[in-house]
């Protein structure tokens, strides 16, 4: 009886399983295969086996290390700030005040804005000549009338520009999850602590923080991975430029595969990045399963 119903459970997984096989497992195996081959679509659809040649080429490619380094810069510039913003906004949104549900909606809104739309708006707002940010700085006298700041075109500032846009665009997912964790903290605990004379800081430290800690770890891991593999934000803001300044892992895979059409070489570089992100993924899954058991 029990085994029959267990089988039903497995049957129900079949549709998702088949779709995942076709769209995740098969492509993954194909990319691994492709990374040991050369494929020139202009000549033919057939692959030519080249062994570990692609990987050997990576070692002498100056952009290989640069792209990975840039990805880590992007992660370091984005994820900690995402976390701080999300935590701060979630703490605010967890307070009782009029218009709280509207506030929660607004704070989640950047997730809804298509990344393409966001990039258009930001490329205008951060434009050196007529961008509204520079115009505001000129109005405040921080910038001379004819001076310009290329937030997205000056190679010294481009990371600040890109990360700033990424902060405002991609924090909502973390925010929602931290907010959900905050609202699961039992109110009685706070009241008891208040009676015992604990101030706001120690209430946060000894009640709030321990409760939301597991979620914070999960979110930080997920944030690191999502930023590391992100392609769209940077591609749409700078296309990896100026020069190679913001060419991250995702951008370089795209350039290699779909601009230079070195599909095999692009796949090899893709696999290297995949391995890096899988390390974080394993940590995430470990935490996730521990939480799910509780």
């Amino acid at each position, binding site marked *: 009886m029990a085994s029959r119903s267990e089988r039903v459970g497995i049957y129900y997984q079949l549709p998702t399983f088949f779709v*995942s096989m076709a769209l995740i497992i098969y492509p993954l195996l194909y990319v691994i295969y492709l990374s040991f081959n050369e494929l020139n679509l202009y000549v033919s659809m057939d692959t030519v086996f080249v062994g570990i040649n692609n990987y050997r080429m990576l070692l002498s490619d100056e952009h290989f290390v640069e792209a990975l380094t840039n990805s880590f810069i992007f992660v370091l510039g984005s994820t900690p700030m995402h976390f701080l913003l999300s935590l701060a906004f979630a703490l605010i949104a967890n307070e009782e005040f009029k218009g709280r549900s509207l506030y929660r909606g607004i704070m989640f809104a950047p997730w809804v804005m298509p990344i393409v739309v966001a990039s258009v708006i*930001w490329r205008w707002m951060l434009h050196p000549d007529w961008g509204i940010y520079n115009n505001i700085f000129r109005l405040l006298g921080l910038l001379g009338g004819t001076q310009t700041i290329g937030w997205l075109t000056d190679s010294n500032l481009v990371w600040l520009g890109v990360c700033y846009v990424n902060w405002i665009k991609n924090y909502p997912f973390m925010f929602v999850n931290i907010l959900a964790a905050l609202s699961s903290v039992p109110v009685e605990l706070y009241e008891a602590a208040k009676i015992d004379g604990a101030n706001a800081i120690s209430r946060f430290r000894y009640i709030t923080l321990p409760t939301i800690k597991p979620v914070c770890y999960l979110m930080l891991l997920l944030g690191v991975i999502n930023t590391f593999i992100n392609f769209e934000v940077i591609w749409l803001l700078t296309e990896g430029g100026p020069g190679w300044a913001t060419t991250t892992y995702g951008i370089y895979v795209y350039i290699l595969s779909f601009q230079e059409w070195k599909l095999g070489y692009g796949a090899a570089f893709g696999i290297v990045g995949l391995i890096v992100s899988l390390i974080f993924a394993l940590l995430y899954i470990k935490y996730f399963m521990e939480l799910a058991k509780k």
Partner: protein
Amino acid sequence: MKKDRLRRAILYLCVFISAIWVIHPFVLMAFYSFVPDKDIFSRTLVFPSSFTLDGYFWVLGLPMSPDNPFKGTSGSINFYKAAMNSLIPAFIAGIAVVVITIFSGYSLARYGHNRVVRYLGILYLAKQFLPWVLFMTPYYIMFATFRLIDNFISLIVVYIGSNLPWSVWMISAFVSEIPVDLEEAALVDGCNTRQMVLKILLPMIAPGLVAVFLFAFTNVWNAYLIPLILSSTIETKPLAVLIAELFTWYGRTYYSGLFALCTLTTVPVAVMFVYLQKFLIRGLSRGAVKG
């Protein structure tokens, strides 16, 4: 009490500043879609001298004011076709994801103790960490072999695949909140399985279904990388790709028109979101941590 009022004031100040910061791109986009280009191309911050609907007329292909240099290209961007190209796959993929994940989500919630089911669940979760850009090559080659590049079928299939994993966990979280006893009680009271599912289970996880649909719909509507690779002509090109191309290809960008197009692209998802944000926020946070 005085301390309490100070506390409230600081809270409201934080609320106000953070909300303004988060929403200013939206507001400026909508505002400047009504401002003529000559006021946008300015090195000083001034209140616009006039407002115009030309940007919207340009997008929708209506006659524009005679002195606008872009009046000749009004309607040339194929807005209606691109909007349908965004809408149709988003809708179909959204429905398909809901239908498929009802089964796997239910199974993950109820049979999660089974080892096969549990490992499948982890497998779906792993998709979250795969660099999506890496998958574009196999997709491109796969669908080129079947001659499905620039075809809705390939786009919809990939959209479904990319939205399934998270959705399974979201539905599973909603199902696991419903006591098993309720299902058993219904069966004891003489419901058959179909009645139990239709009358008890589905209505109870309805918010979850709405959340999953919304999540998938918005993801597809906003998708950029997948259509960038898989669609090549206006036959399947969605709004997202159209906007990106407009911004790169046109020698001189027609900002009012571009902002109007951006506003029109954001409005449908934004409206849906305002009505249904509660479901979505609930669903998203459940999928991530509770399992």
